[in-house]
């Protein structure tokens, strides 16, 4: 009765501290099967894979509950090397290739075939001679088996991106005992035709009896190649189905779901439409690695809270970064009618835009500085406030700074020992409040908050969201909120734009049905097929 599975994961649970990221997840993959794993960012996919590969993060944070069973034998991997030895391979989204090496060398890296020599007999195995003939033959075989007719002696350096992916695959299937291959969003960086080629290669690999786990956001690809799929949401399995029993809209709905967390109580009805345009974006492009914005037109009205959502890597974070001048941007942006000059560093700040960065520790804060210095820094440099002129120099006016910092600490409820505490020693939520305080110190006309609630506790989350709503409704501040958490966007925003593939796939009302959000998020290509 018992079917043989290449991989079974049973009742896997994992907590990071108090935060449960996986709750009783089970899945099983048969040899020769393509199994799709679907979910939003933060749904638990990567944690599940980290467990499968025995990554040290898992062990360092207290291990996990449940079982990983490979070929019917329970496995406990202490390192990725163990997992590799057990026949599990991964095709990375970021290539693990050495550009200066030939394709053969890359395929065989760390597993070179060797011939013993006189020296190796005396001084040990590491002086064995490389068996270039065999390695080239093996590489050729692996390349042939995935239909790549490129010469194995070529260096990887100049290859097109699509080819690199295939070299990665060739490396994995060259491993003798490979049983299970994980493809982590393999098509994210490929063109459409390259992606098609990849899918057919996946099929042919599966035919050889190798099990495949396919992680992707592109639902049409799931429909194309997968045999079965599991949807994860908030660390739980929401559904496991055969592909023939389902369709794209259903998966999209399962993926998004309706979160019934009312983060902010709003008594007032939604905003009254103002005709004044706060931010006008035309043909906007941002060259931000990993978050490229390709072409965007947007009008954001004065006094609204405008949400920007979408999956990671689709370009939503690129929008604030482009406006703030962190990455090269092109196109037209007008702030209250004033044209933004990308070439001028800090121009957006001077035109009254403040931004809370998604990278709190990397961009948002000076971790070694005090709370007060962080709060007033932008106001001091941009607006030259909190300074005392000394004729030849402008010194920071410690008294004014202290007073303002204390005020912000009170209004935003920053939990600290005092305005002089080092920001690096604060908790994530309090750091975020400092970021917000620093943006508010600029007294902006337009506030952009990017991922304001990432990695902070529920209390701080609520306070920050409530404060944002208050700023908008009672002080008339225009707010753009960029977030991966659809739930929080829907709870406070007036309109929500979903970004996919670097473009706006649709602008929705917060109470639009789940299906629409789900479809919008999984790329424009899908929605065309549906309509």
């Amino acid at each position, binding site marked *: 009765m018992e079917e043989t599975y290449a991989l079974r994961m049973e009742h896997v649970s994992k907590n990071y501290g108090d935060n449960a990221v996986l709750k009783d997840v089970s899945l099983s993959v048969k040899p020769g099967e393509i199994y799709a794993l679907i979910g939003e960012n933060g749904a638990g996919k990567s944690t599940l894979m980290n467990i499968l590969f025995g990554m040290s993060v898992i062990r360092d944070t207290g291990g996990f509950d449940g079982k990983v069973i490979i070929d019917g034998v329970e496995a406990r991997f202490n390192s990725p090397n163990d997992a590799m030895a057990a026949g599990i391979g991964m095709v990375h989204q970021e290539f693990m290739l050495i550009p200066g090496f030939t394709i053969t060398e890359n395929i065989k890296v760390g597993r070179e075939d060797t011939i013993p020599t006189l020296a190796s007999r005396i001084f040990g195995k590491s002086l064995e001679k490389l068996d270039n003939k065999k390695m080239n033959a093996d590489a050729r075989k692996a390349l042939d088996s995935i239909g790549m007719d490129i010469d194995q002696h070529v260096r990887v350096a100049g290859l097109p991106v699509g080819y690199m992916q295939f070299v990665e695959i060739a490396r994995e299937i060259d491993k003798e005992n490979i049983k299970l291959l994980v493809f982590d969003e393999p098509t994210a960086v490929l063109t459409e035709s390259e992606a098609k080629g990849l899918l057919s290669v996946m099929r042919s690999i599966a035919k050889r009896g190798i099990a495949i786990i396919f992680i992707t956001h592109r639902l049409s690809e799931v429909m194309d190649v997968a045999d079965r799929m599991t949807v994860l949401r908030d660390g739980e399995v929401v559904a496991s189905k055969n592909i023939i029993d389902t369709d794209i809209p259903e998966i999209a709905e399962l993926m998004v779901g309706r979160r019934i967390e009312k983060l902010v109580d709003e008594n007032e009805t939604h905003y009254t439409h103002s005709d004044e345009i706060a931010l006008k974006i035309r043909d906007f492009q941002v060259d931000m690695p990993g978050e490229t914005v390709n072409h965007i037109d947007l009008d954001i009205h004065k006094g609204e809270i405008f949400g920007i959502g979408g999956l990671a890597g689709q370009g939503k974070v690129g929008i604030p970064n482009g406006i*703030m*001048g*962190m990455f090269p941007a092109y196109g037209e942006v007008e702030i209250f009618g004033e044209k933004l000059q990308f070439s001028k*560093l*800090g*121009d957006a*700040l*001077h035109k009254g835009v403040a*931004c809370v*960065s998604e*990278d709190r520790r*990397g*961009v*948002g*804060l*000076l*971790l*070694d*500085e005090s709370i007060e*210095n962080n709060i007033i*820094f*932008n106001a*001091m*440099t*941009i607006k*030259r406030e909190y*300074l005392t002129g000394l004729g030849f*120099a*402008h*010194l*920071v006016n410690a008294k004014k700074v202290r007073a303002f910092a204390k005020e912000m600490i009170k209004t935003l409820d920053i939990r600290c020992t005092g305005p002089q505490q080092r920001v690096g020693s604060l908790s994530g939520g309090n750091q975020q409040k400092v970021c917000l305080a620093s943006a508010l110190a600029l007294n902006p006309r337009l506030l952009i908050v990017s991922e304001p609630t990432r990695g902070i506790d529920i209390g701080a989350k609520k306070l920050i969201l409530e404060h944002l709503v208050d700023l908008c409704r009672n002080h008339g501040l225009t707010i753009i909120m960029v977030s991966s958490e659809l739930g929080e966007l829907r709870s406070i925003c007036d309109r929500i734009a979903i970004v996919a593939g670097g473009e706006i796939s649709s602008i929705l009302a917060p109470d639009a049905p789940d299906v629409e959000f789900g479809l919008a998020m999984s790329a424009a290509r899908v929605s065309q097929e549906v309509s």
Partner: protein
Amino acid sequence: MERMTKAVKNFGLPRIIIIAFFLSLLVAAAVTGMDMAALLGDVVRRWAMYGILVLAMVPSIQCGIGPNFGVTIGIVGGLLAALITIEMRFYGFFDSFANGGAMMQVCIAILLALILSSILGILYGMLLNRVKGSEMTVSTYVGFSIVALFNILWLMLPFKNGTSIWPLAGEGMRTTINLEADFASVFNNLLAFKIGNFEMPTGLLLLFFLACFFVWLFTKSRTGMMMSAAGANPNFAKAAGINVNKMRILGTTISTALGGVGIICYAQSFGFLQLYNAPQMMGFACVASVLIGGASISKARIVHVLLGTLLFHGMLAVALPVANNILPEGNLSEILRIIISNGIILYALSKAKEAGK
């Protein structure tokens, strides 16, 4: 106990060893019956003498280029400035001033040093902006090359005064130039007083403190804060609309200019101007001093300068006579200097990476 070990870790084991060593040297000096007052006077003199050179490390570390091994560039600028004033004196430029014009001469020298070193510093800063991430290695070798280049310059300078040039050849600068007739000890002797054998180089010390105060003031100013933000977190600075490269050039320039001023203060106290290869390793001594004071590759404050210079150069000032007392031969204190200065740099380098993880 755990708290103790943590405190030790924070303070740094090498620092504790060096302080303990310094203290034990002092005890040894006292026990062997040395003239403690004179010795302490020497400690203070050397503290003030090296102080400004070490201070040059602060703006460079704060602006993000790390400890400035290439401070030698500022030093050669300062040396050139001093040589120019000697030539000026030769033509009677300072004759009309009081006391032979030594004070005037040294002030002109400092002013010239500021100008020359700043020009060199701007160029140097522009170079360092192109080599982000390997500033330390590049600056070390750029410093070495500049010293070698200036060696050629010293040989070819068209100066005529007998103080500077070789008497026989009639051209080319001497390796060491006696400043007796110029500005030797003018700052040291300014407001100087004596308690027993303890000599207080008041003027020099005040100048050192004044320089520290100005640098401190700068770090509290708008520009200073923008500069240290650019050094601490370039992405943050960029998001705040700060031109990171400009700030780095600013920091490098200030550092180099301080190097130029520093060498003049050093030379007037020492009494000699040392040309040719003498400045080559000075950058290392400065870096070591500020590191001993508690700075790291990426963080430095004025306190580190004050403490580090006192510890490192004070220790050497004491070690020299003590070592000579214990072991008359063998250049023990010189060996000590090499081991300690390079040891502390190695320690800081290995710590820097650990923190980076």
